């Protein structure tokens, strides 16, 4: 279980919520309401107040890198640090089944990142995070640039990871997607979080 209490960063919070393992929760809210600030804080990429625990263990009992391997943030626009696709993966052979399941060509290891399309890059970024088998996935609009077939592939892959025990916090602006993938929804409004009925 992933538990957050008294979380505060900039104009965000203090707020609290929890995710059961295996649960997919949609994070809703207008652009600029603080969804990304929240996700970055949860991944411990920015300093913030409050307590965050994973299965009862405080985040500060993990090293920063270990925490982020367990609580993995996939930003809406992924960053890249070299040009060859496979160099962004810790172990390409482990990631390959995920890559194929997301509908990418198996020979994309040697692709150049700068020549991949937005949708391809988005799926590669998802695959490289999923390959680490995190306990908590923080997904920032993971399917915003994808065609409907790729959206379906990504949704079913993430659903399968949740079934295997991962807790997922999923930002989306799409009501029907929220209803489709998530058991419940949280709404971010003016730095505060509240539970909203499923639409």
């Amino acid at each position, binding site marked *: 279980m992933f538990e957050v209490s008294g979380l505060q960063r900039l104009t965000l919070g203090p707020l609290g919520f929890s995710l059961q393992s295996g649960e997919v929760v949609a994070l809703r809210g207008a652009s600029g309401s603080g969804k990304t600030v929240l996700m970055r804080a949860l991944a411990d*990429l920015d300093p913030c107040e409050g307590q965050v625990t994973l299965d009862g263990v405080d985040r500060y009992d993990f090293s*920063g*890198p270990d925490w982020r*391997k367990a609580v993995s943030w996939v930003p809406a626009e992924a*960053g890249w640090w070299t040009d060859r696709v496979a160099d962004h993966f*810790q172990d390409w052979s482990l990631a390959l089944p995920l890559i194929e399941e997301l509908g990418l060509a198996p020979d994309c290891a040697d692709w150049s990142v700068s020549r991949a399309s937005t949708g391809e890059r988005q799926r590669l970024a998802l695959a490289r995070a999923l390959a*680490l088998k995190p306990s908590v996935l923080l997904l920032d609009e993971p399917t915003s640039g994808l065609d409907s077939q790729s959206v379906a592939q990504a949704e079913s892959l993430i659903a399968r990871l949740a079934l295997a025990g991962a807790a997922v916090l999923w930002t989306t602006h799409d009501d029907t997607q929220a209803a489709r993938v998530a058991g419940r929804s949280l709404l971010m409004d003016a730095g505060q979080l509240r539970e909203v009925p499923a639409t």
Partner: protein
Amino acid sequence: MNYVQLDYVDLALASLLVLANAGLSLALNLGLAKRILIATARMVVQLSLVGLVLKSLFAIASPWWTALAALAMILFAGREIMARQEKNFAGLWAYSLGTGSMLFAAALVTIFALTGPVSPDPWYDPRYALPLLGMILGNTMTGISLGLHTLTTGLVRERAGVEAQLALGRSRADAFRPAIQAALTSALMPIVNAMAATGLVALPGMMTGQILAGVDPVEAVKYQILIMFLIAGGTSLGAVVAVMGGARRLSDSRHRLRLDRLT
């Protein structure tokens, strides 16, 4: 030693070159004339003052006055490093990181030169200490300021890539490595290039100065080689300390990228 002494008429004659330069800028409407003239005026005033100050420091030959002059040079160079940055560290770090690294590197290398290879008597003799420090300082300052500039602008530009690595559980050492490499490369490039080209393309100023003053060219070359070693050592030491210190300051123990510590 015999050499041709310059009088003020000779200098006035040479200054015509700069005036012509400013005139050219005016004619071509480049807007540089004012800056050229201000820089020229500063150069003349600063060097004249330095000449007088050095003359009295050499006459006193006191270790304390020499140390004080050395400290003043380092503090001025530190201000110059800070002024050359596009992104600066917040708070006291803006000044202290560059200045501290330079103080450490330049002092260490200068004292090494004075107590080891050069060994004047006394070892702190300002006639040796201050010119050596000046040459080491000038180059170390350039190296540190280029290194810090490349580090901070690189991390700001590559922020998404650095944070992507951190988000995937990589350490700050891994995530910062390309930026640190680029920073140290740009810090050391001027001295590496200078060493490679020196003697073929350009005759170094100190060596030509000694030759003009009547020193045997072979002796002047020996001095120049020593100076190049000192400069290379001081620059790389200072740049490594500044860049590693800067990288540490721009991350924290949780392995986060802390660009909020830049202004």
